């Protein structure tokens, strides 16, 4: 009897505890409109100026003068950097670390996206010639001067030879030819491309490295060079030119940077930047741990996603952080349709010929596009913090075609489109002309909750049209194998990251020869759709034009084609939202460069 009583009490207690938990877990319904992009109100400082003091060409920031000292603790998700060699980075974390250590000739203006000088004092373009003037008197972190020889070395012996990560070499190659580089004088260099090539200029943001430090290793060949500056390098031996130099790397725990006293940027009082003494990157395994660390005040900045942002926004007023919504990110989520109509080596079709007829029918694709409910997805999956997307350029791209407004979901219109192509309805089920029931597979990578949720919603939307969609989340690697190797898929939900500044980076996806031409991978030129041929031509033409105003119409047209033909149906771009402690000043978030691209200007208000 006593025992029974105990058990009952136990159950009641646990029920009470659980009830509390459940209550706390249900997200409060907040007005998501409160987190619409707020970076339009940011007043950016004026453009940097060049100031010469005692024969040194400094770059002078026009941002308010701050106080020196203190540190900023950031996080990086995953296993941490693989290398500190800026020429050999293959993953985002290594690139981020290397970009603190090494700066290039040019960089991107956070506000306008224009190309502005950084290590270079100035540049001008004369036809196919790019003439770069260097700063006089600036130094590497070990005190040796930065000269034209370092620039020549970087490009001629690393980039043009394809050492390290060769993607930069590919990006600089125009019609199979690399540009030439000549030294005009000790502080002037000239690049010459074989023909006009617009994406070239932005490639000059490639990090410039010290010849005296790198040359012994680059002379020994690719494998030695790839191992150079690995994570076991003694930090004090690294020679760099960025605002911070490496202080310490502890595997799987943290990377610490300290200020570079030789940095060439000064503030309005002509004091050398950066303000902060240290930048600390904690290496955290996953985003959840990052959030815990932010709440435990071990981190100063955190990237928020849809389901955490409401909670953070609610507490913002009483807290010590500010939330910035930088607007849509460069990430895009989409449904791609397989238009492949070829056979494999054994004579089997990659895609069932019955399905080929549907997928290669423009009306069918358009119907799918009109049936997906983007707004509903954004409300329910992205918690309202995302922007609908109708074409390949992300909403923050300077090349976004603003004329493509997109339509709301319209199932009736979609049904009409299908009927125009001879599809018929029997008992609310969709059959094609030959009487085949419309049923196909939709894949995505398992484990990505956002894409899995999207899959369910796309499936529901398409079932409204009478289609039967078998939604199959599969392991990421198997999915990639399907997309790039075996081509045996019907539809897929994926995401890619593009460049908001250079649409030409999308050439691997959109040109018929591209390595990631997902929707019609490996199509021979003579079997291309007309619009695929036009895309090929547009990408070629766009690269040859240098002026933004000349290029814009070309890339507008490419986006139009995509929205017209819908080989890929874009869904939305999630917003980038960050919280940063209020004590940090000179924070000028930018849709293009992120929250804290200006580590050298940040300071702590005490």
């Amino acid at each position: 009897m006593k025992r029974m009583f105990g058990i009952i009490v136990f159950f009641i207690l646990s029920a009470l505890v659980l009830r509390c938990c459940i209550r706390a877990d249900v997200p409060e319904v907040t007005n998501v409109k409160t987190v619409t992009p707020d970076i339009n109100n940011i007043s950016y400082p004026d453009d940097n100026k060049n100031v010469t003091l005692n024969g040194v060409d400094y770059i002078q920031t026009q941002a308010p003068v701050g106080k020196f000292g203190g540190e900023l603790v950031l996080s990086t998700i995953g296993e941490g950097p693989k290398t500190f060699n800026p020429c050999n980075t293959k993953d985002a974390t290594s690139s981020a670390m290397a970009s603190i250590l090494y700066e290039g000739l040019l960089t991107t203006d956070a506000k306008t996206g224009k190309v502005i000088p950084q290590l270079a004092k100035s540049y001008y373009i004369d036809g196919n010639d790019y003439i770069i003037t260097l700063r006089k008197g600036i130094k590497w972190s070990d005190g040796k001067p930065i000269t034209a020889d370092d620039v020549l070395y970087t490009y001629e012996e690393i980039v043009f030879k394809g050492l390290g990560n060769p993607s930069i070499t590919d990006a600089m190659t125009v019609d199979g030819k690399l540009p030439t580089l000549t030294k005009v004088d000790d502080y002037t260099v000239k690049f010459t491309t074989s023909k006009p090539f617009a994406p070239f200029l932005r490639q000059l943001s490639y990090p410039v490295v010290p010849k005296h430090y790198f040359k012994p290793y680059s002379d020994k060949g690719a494998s030695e060079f790839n191992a150079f500056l690995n994570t076991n390098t003694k930090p004090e031996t690294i020679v760099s030119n960025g605002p911070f130099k490496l202080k310490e790397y502890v595997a799987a725990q943290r990377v610490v940077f300290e200020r570079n006293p030789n940095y060439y940027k000064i503030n309005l009082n002509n004091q050398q930047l950066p303000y902060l003494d240290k930048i600390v990157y904690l290496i955290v395994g996953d985003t959840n741990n990052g959030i815990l660390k932010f709440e435990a005040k071990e981190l100063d900045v955190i990237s928020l996603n849809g389901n955490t942002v409401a909670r953070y926004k609610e507490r913002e007023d009483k807290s010590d952080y500010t939330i910035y919504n930088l607007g849509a990110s460069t990430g895009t989520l989409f449904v791609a349709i397989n238009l492949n109509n070829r056979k494999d080596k054994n004579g089997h079709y990659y895609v069932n010929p019955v399905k080929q007829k549907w997928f290669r029918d423009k009306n069918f694709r358009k119907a799918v596009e009109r049936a997906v409910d983007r707004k509903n997805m954004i409300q329910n999956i992205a918690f309202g913090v995302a922007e609908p997307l109708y074409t390949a350029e992300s909403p923050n791209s300077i090349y976004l075609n603003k004329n493509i407004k997109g339509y709301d979901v319209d199932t009736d219109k979609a049904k009409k489109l299908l009927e125009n192509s001879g599809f018929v309805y029997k008992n609310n089920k969709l059959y094609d002309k030959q009487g085949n029931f419309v049923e196909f597979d939709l894949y995505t990578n398992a484990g990505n909750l956002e894409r899995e949720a999207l899959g369910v919603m796309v499936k529901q939307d398409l079932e409204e049209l009478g289609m039967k969609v078998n939604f199959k989340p599969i392991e990421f690697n198997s999915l990639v194998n399907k997309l790039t190797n075996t081509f045996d898929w019907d539809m897929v939900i994926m995401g890619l990251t593009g460049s908001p500044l250079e649409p030409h980076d999308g050439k691997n996806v959109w040109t018929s020869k591209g390595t990631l031409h997902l929707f019609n991978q490996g199509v021979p030129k003579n079997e291309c759709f007309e619009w695929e041929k036009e895309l090929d031509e547009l990408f070629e033409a766009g690269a040859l034009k240098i002026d933004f105003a000349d290029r814009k119409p070309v890339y507008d047209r490419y986006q139009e084609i995509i929205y017209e033909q819908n080989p890929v149906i874009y869904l939305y771009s999630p917003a980038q939202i960050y919280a940063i402690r209020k004590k940090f000043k000179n924070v000028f978030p930018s849709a293009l460069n992120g929250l804290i691209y200006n580590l050298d200007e940040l300071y702590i208000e005490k």
Partner: protein
Amino acid sequence: MGLLRFTAKRILQVIPLLIIVSMISFFIIRLAPIDPLAELRINPSISEETLQKEVKRLKLDKPIAVQYLYWAKSFVQLDLGYTSDGEKVSVKLKERIPNTLLLTLVVIFMTWITGIPLGILAAVKKETALDRLLTVFSSIGMAIPSFFFAILMLMFAVKTGWFPAGGLTSYNYNDMNFIGKICDISRHLVLPVIVLFTISLSGLQRQMRANMLEVLDSDYIKFARAKGLSEWKVIFKHALRNAVNPLITLLGFEFAGLLSGAALTEYVFQYPGLGRLILEAVMKSDINLVMASLMMGTIMLVAGNLIADILLLLTDPRTRKSQEAK
């Protein structure tokens, strides 16, 4: 002499075992449809040439059997190869092993110095309130999943702010003095140690209690009591010696778990140990790293058993007899 021969024989037996384990694991990993280059393939800025170079470097263009032979050849030469990111496997392991050892050794030490006395106590005070209380605690310890307990502990750390939310050292660790460093590491170790300790303590305590009860029930103990020996002597001089034998086997398994036993907890606490490294490696099908860790696990397990057997030979005359009879 007998001991030496026994050891040599056991070590020789390990070789076929290693070959079989390595073959099975290599083929399982390679036959799984995981492509170590998947991330690169889906990256729009990676060119076809780069991909081909990577395929060559990782020898993915060769048949699996050939890949295995390449691996086996370098393994025999004690060369663990490179990870798929081009870092040396041995260096990566060396970075992490001390951290994992620190955690597991602390846990094992604490478990054994508390688990055994508690087990004895529970057996001696069988079916008293104290025994029941210990039973409740050890049941909870055995029932609670380690990752869940770890998450609870992390929440506790974040809410109270008494302990850091994971990791092993604070970011300003290198600026601390010696005592500061010790305090910092201890503060970071408290929570993972509590989790692992609670879980392994229960098992050990239950095991000790059961062994002890069995021995206490035997005839010679009854005889010893009847002879009028003090209870203290009966327990520590006669019962304990026999009850501890199965625990030596257990110690062998603990040895095997030194490097691999705490993977889940390590992951939750973001502890910079082997667990996190290997989990990531498995996900990416980073074959050299996974194989190195599997081989290490196998060797540790075999070595642990060997050590336990040798210890048993030394402590228990009965096993020595049967060995000699062979």
